[in-house]
């Protein structure tokens, strides 16, 4: 075992330095930041679009006094509800009839309200009428009440803790952690698919296979890719934390996960490592069968779809702690890290995590062994019976 770990470390060190010291690694580090920057830019633009242009415009085809009452009522309601919650009101001539005005080529109103505040008539397409009917009714009611409509004062009573809010917050933390781990895994594990192609195309595989157990080759490659992903995570995490500190509104805080932030973060790293090595060992086993980069690309699609399925299964169970689907997600090795990080956010006991990590580690070992067996059988054209090979010593 010691010899195998030593050999795995030699291979890991080679792979790690080959990747990290290459120029393309800078692109790899900066790559995930591009969509974030673009997203932020388009997000800001989107905010502007949604706050101005996308609010529906309602034409008021009423006498001036009635239109003014409607506008005042909308203003008072907007003070409490926010402008974005109500449509934009715009006065339009009472004639011609609303249906004629809506049919004009330059019309920009969605619906036209005619009649009076006590008896408003809304003209528009069925879906628009249905969507805006409630808003117009609310504005017209407020216009009718006008001076007698008093906004009741709500007295705030501040408490330090709210279990409901805490539960909600922890659920959100669990979901976010799942998503982050999933995206990091999908981003990084895919690279493992093509990992052995270099050795095969450069014919180095025979030198490796003659010198060290194939298990050590697989393990070394996983270790290297994991170490490389930690470099990426440290960079991206540091950047995200700096952005969070810079953009965080004053007084804003994060809800505490059930298990506490330090343990939660440590578990997040461990579960990422487990999710990564579980999928990575599977990918390595599959990718090792491929002879060319093209074959690897063909394999990529079904493998990614499989990842998505596992992730959806784990997220489905996140708000159902202790339910059969959640327990199944915890037991199923590939969904286990995702299910367990959500559990860490919501449940404070530590021992299930120790159990789960051990369970996942067993599966990593088993999947590596199966990958090695397949590799020996199909690539090296070696090996006898399945069971004999699965449990034989790595050094043969």
């Amino acid at each position: 075992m010691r010899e195998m770990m030593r050999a795995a470390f030699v291979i890991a060190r080679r792979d790690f330095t080959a990747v990290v010291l290459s120029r393309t690694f800078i692109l790899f580090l900066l790559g995930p930041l591009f969509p974030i920057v673009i997203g932020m830019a388009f997000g800001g633009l989107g905010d502007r679009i949604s706050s101005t242009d996308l609010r529906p415009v309602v034409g008021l085809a009423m006498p001036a006094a009635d239109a003014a009452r409607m506008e005042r009522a909308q203003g008072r309601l907007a003070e409490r509800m926010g402008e974005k919650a109500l449509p934009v009101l715009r006065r339009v001539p009472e004639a011609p009839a609303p249906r004629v005005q809506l049919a004009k080529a330059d019309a920009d109103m969605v619906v036209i309200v005619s009649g009076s505040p006590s008896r408003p008539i809304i003209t528009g397409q069925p879906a628009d009428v249905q969507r805006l009917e409630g808003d117009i009714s609310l504005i017209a009611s407020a216009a009718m009440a006008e001076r007698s409509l008093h906004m009741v004062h709500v007295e705030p009573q501040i408490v330090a803790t709210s279990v409901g809010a805490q539960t909600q917050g922890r659920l959100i933390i669990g979901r976010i952690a799942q998503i982050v781990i999933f995206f990091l895994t999908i981003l990084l594990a895919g690279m493992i698919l093509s990992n052995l192609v270099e050795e095969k195309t450069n014919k180095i595989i025979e030198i490796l296979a003659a010198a060290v157990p194939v298990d050590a080759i697989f393990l070394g490659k996983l270790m290297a890719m994991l170490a490389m992903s930690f470099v990426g995570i440290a960079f991206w995490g540091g950047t995200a934390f700096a952005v969070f500190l810079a953009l965080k509104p004053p007084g804003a805080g994060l809800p505490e996960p059930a298990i506490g932030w330090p343990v939660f973060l440590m578990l997040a790293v461990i579960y990422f490592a487990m999710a990564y090595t579980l999928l990575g060992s599977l990918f390595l086993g599959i990718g090792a069968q491929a002879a060319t980069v093209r074959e690897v690309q063909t394999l990529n699609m079904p493998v990614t779809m499989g990842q998505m399925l596992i992730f959806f299964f784990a997220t489905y169970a996140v708000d159902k702690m202790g339910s059969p689907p959640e327990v199944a997600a915890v037991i199923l090795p590939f969904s286990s890290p995702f299910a367990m990080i959500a559990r860490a956010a919501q449940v404070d006991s530590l021992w299930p995590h120790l159990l789960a990590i051990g369970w996942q580690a067993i599966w990593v070992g088993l999947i590596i062994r199966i990958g090695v067996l397949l590799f020996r059988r199909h690539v090296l054209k070696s090996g006898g019976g399945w069971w004999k090979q699965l449990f034989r010593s790595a050094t043969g």
Partner: protein
Amino acid sequence: MIGAPTPTYAVEGHGLVKTFGDFRAVDGIDIAVPAGSIYGVLGPNGAGKTTLLRTLLGIVDPDEGRRTLLGDAAPLRQARNVGYLPEERGLYPSMKACEAVAFMGALRGLPLKIGRERARAMLADYGMGAAADKPIRALSKGMAQTVQLFGTIVHEPRLIVLDEPFSGLDAFNQGKLEALIREQAKRGVTVLFSTHVIAHAERLCERIAIVASGRVRFEGTVAEARDRLRPQVRLRTRMSDGPWRHALPAETLADDGAWHFPLPLEGIEPLLRALLDGNAGIESLSIERPGLHDAFVAIAGEAAARQMQDDQTQEEAA
């Protein structure tokens, strides 16, 4: 590594069989490589040499039979004591030459620092000091092969296995490689190599195994192989005919004004006497010991020998 107890045979294989589908690449081979010897596995391409070496090294498992490497039935357990140069050369193209040598040593347990020091020294001794910090992709094919060869021996193994080591090398580098193999053998290292070039085996090997169609057709010393054939007599006479002709063996062939025949079992004296008595007029008479090539033809067959020749011609053309 040298100094550990050495078994009588560095490599042993008994009844080895390896099949790929219906094809028996290795078909019941017995082999025993004495420790400290230079041992050649000779045969045409496709004879099963590479599969035999890979089976002995533990890269592939045999379907039948057993093997030991330096006395160990699990070959990979002896990885630190073995150096292997595969037929298909392979190195990481972006790796520096010095690092590549050290990496190959590290795979077999040599600390990287020592590996780097030794790599620099080896490259410098070989006149390749300037290439030490160059990436493999910047080296010529011959230089890259040399780097890989150094990677095979940098950890000072007790057994070196070379699969077609001369393939792709020019005559100058082939000579250097032969010298290197002899130098390793002098240090007590066992060298097992495969080749389809008879001349290398003849010059280097103490023992050889002639392999054809997955089977060992001959195993023994080069001298033993050559002794399988009787020495050839080449006789040139002034007279073309006479009673002395009856003294020539039945299998005598006439070629270019000379007689060729195997040395008679009773020796040369009776024939000489007949030639002198019959006034044949001996111009020249030579007794030549057969070469390994002749022995190979006799052992493996004309077809295998012709294929070996073709393999060599193709390689030289390439």
